[in-house]
């Protein structure tokens, strides 16, 4: 009888542990905070640090993008909140935007963040409620970032300098 209990408990442990490993390989968390945050999000216990989020949005509005990202990372250490990830992507876009050229490294980081926001949002598309942002959805922001990275003949169009930052 005890042997059966041990075997059943062992089977349950192995299946649970195996599922956790599959989750780790599928989600690819990069830090311990992302692992714990991911688990908390799955059981509905994950919350964003609201004070840090508001501080980050304030930095963002004042164009202090690196400081904004530090605060956003503090607000959402597990990268589980689509709104925070959208703001992070937007900060990369605005910081990397230039009248003559765009910073490809920042744009790529922005793409990664906007993809994460889209993954986390229901239906794979995030729409912000912040009316001050011209690009409202993850699709629009993604397209803008991708356009900045892509190299095509329009890059040599001198009228490009009149384009406005979104």
């Amino acid at each position, binding site marked *: 009888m005890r042997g059966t209990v041990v*075997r059943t*408990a062992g089977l349950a442990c*192995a299946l649970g542990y195996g599922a956790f*490993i599959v989750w780790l*390989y599928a989600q690819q968390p*990069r830090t311990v905070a992302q692992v714990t945050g991911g688990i908390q999000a799955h059981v509905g216990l994950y919350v964003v640090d609201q004070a840090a989020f508001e501080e980050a949005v304030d930095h963002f509005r004042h164009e202090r993008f690196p400081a904004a990202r530090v605060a956003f990372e503090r607000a959402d250490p597990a990268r589980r909140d689509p709104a925070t990830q959208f703001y992070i992507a937007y900060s990369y876009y605005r910081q990397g935007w230039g009248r003559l050229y765009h910073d490809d490294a920042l744009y790529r980081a922005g793409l990664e963040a906007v993809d994460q926001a889209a993954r986390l949002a229901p239906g794979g598309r995030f729409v912000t409620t912040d009316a001050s942002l011209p690009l409202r959805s993850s699709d629009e922001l993604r397209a803008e970032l991708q356009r900045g990275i892509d190299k095509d003949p329009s890059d040599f169009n001198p009228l490009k300098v009149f384009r406005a930052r979104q």
Partner: protein
Amino acid sequence: MTEAIERTAPSEAWAAREAVVLPLIFLTVALLGGMRVSADGSGFRFVPPPLISLVLAVLLIAVLVRGRRLEPLWLMSNCRAPLENLNGGVVLVTLFFASAQLFNCVAPDAGLAHLVFNTVLFLLLWNTLAAGPEAGRLLHSLLVLFGSAFILKHIVLAGLYAPEAGLTRRVLTVLLEGVTLGTMDGTPQASATGYVAFAAVLLFFVGLFLLPGAPAPGRERPASASLPSAPDAEEILEP
């Protein structure tokens, strides 16, 4: 063989080993085998096994069965209860993924070195399969195989591509990349990756040592003897 196995109640110790200890060991190896800690401080990442690692894992299991270090009938047979068979099946599945991730762990992730390492591992395993060594020698042979691959990747190559490498090492790296036409992949890893890989290799061998194997030659159980539980590793390794 199947006819020779008569079903009796296995001991609780063996039940714990088969249902708890072995799956947990092999799952931990599967977890650690793909873990890489970046040298640039961007955290860690988990690398799933490439196809070649799965092929090598199948070959390794064939070698273990051939060398009688693993006796599948001790884990799954029609003489066992369904729950026991489930536990045995979990051991076999976790052993497969642990083996695949161990190959993933001791071989470089990309480039020419990945190809060379995996080809050599494949040939050595095939050779071991053909030679069919007995259980004790097989463990020794596998220890040499994984130990040398570990040293080459995590000590020699990691030393060459370390970010803080000196001038001599930088010159050697440039020469190596020149000779291989730039196909060597030298992504620097944090030293923690090596420690994690060492733990994975060590744990894998503990798991192999605990696997139920066949009795040593000359010590086969008579067909009439019942199968109380899987034999201990010590018993197998006795001369």
